[in-house]
């Protein structure tokens, strides 16, 4: 059975020097998924990369949670379009060959 590793929100916040309400706000905006186990708030390991990215953008560029939400959606769209471009390029290449 696959095991999911969780990181306690306080541990994450202290490591990355962010406030707990900041993470909760990102959860509210559906930018990250955090889980509540009994009364403790935990971050699943597979959310770490995404959350770290958001923290970097917040620290480096002073982007607030509202801005991060917009970036999150736009990056998802960019990724999707990029995948589509790659797929269509390959398809086109076949016709050209």
């Amino acid at each position: 059975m696959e095991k999911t590793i969780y990181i306690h929100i306080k541990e994450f916040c202290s490591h990355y020097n962010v406030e707990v309400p900041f993470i909760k706000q990102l959860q509210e905006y559906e930018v990250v998924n955090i889980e509540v186990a009994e009364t403790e708030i935990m971050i699943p390991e597979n959310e770490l990369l995404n959350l770290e990215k958001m923290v970097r953008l917040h620290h480096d560029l002073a982007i607030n949670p509202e801005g991060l939400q917009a970036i999150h959606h736009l990056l998802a769209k960019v990724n999707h379009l990029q995948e589509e471009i790659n797929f269509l390029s390959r398809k086109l290449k076949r016709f050209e060959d």
Partner: protein
Amino acid sequence: MEFIDYYKVLALTKKATEKEIKSAYRKLARKYHPDLNPNDAEAEKKFKQINEANEVLSNPEKRKKYDQYGKDWQHAEEFEKAKTQRGANQSGRSYTNSSNQEGDFSDFFESMFGGASYGRQERQVKFRGQDFNAELQLNLSDVIKTHKRTLTINGKNIRINIPAGIEDKQTIKIKGYGGDGINGGPKGDLYITFSLLNNTEFKREGANLYKTLEIPLTKAILGGTITINTLEGKVKLTLKPETQNGAQVKLKGKGFPRYKKDNEYGDLYITYAIKIPTNLTDDQRELFKKLEELDLK
């Protein structure tokens, strides 16, 4: 090594105020931040320069040294020491042109401040290396059996295992074969997307194979034996008498290997297409007429 003008990097003049430096940094960082420019090596490079420029110019002490010594600022401390020592014996001598060494800003940064992390006011941000994407074109017949292949990615030879049954457009991830991380961050990954050209006589859907086989009208009516090609060679099939056009038979386990499942294969589906004879001889035409008459009775 090339000297990097930090003012130029941030598009500022030497008279720029702290506020202007901060504003220029934020503006450019928003444009080139690696998280906002995935898979863009140029943006990543530019962002590193912008960061470096900001770290020096936003620190009054470092900025002063940079302004004073310009490209030779990596020797600033040595100059200062020499100046103090010689000050007692000689005065009014300029040291700014005494070095012929070309200074590299990053090297300076490390030697001057004891490594990249020294003197930084904020935490050092580690970035995962860039992910590389590559496409590998293979014939369908190449992926019937698991085999190894050597690929050259960014000048590096990588030997990879290509599992039998891989799908067209399927992407596999090879961890740690992407670009180098920044500031000690982990390496990126390599993604290989397979593009399969079907060079077989079969249509493939997952692990199942499909083929339409033409059979003569007489054989369809009277039945008999036919020989068909499979991936593993020829197979003899018994054709039932009065086989209908479009009838399908399944040859269990004669399809494509299942991805990452040893000794498991899909099925091969043969659809019969009855071929209506053309250019009939007189005898044949006569026989068909007789058949027609029999049908009418």
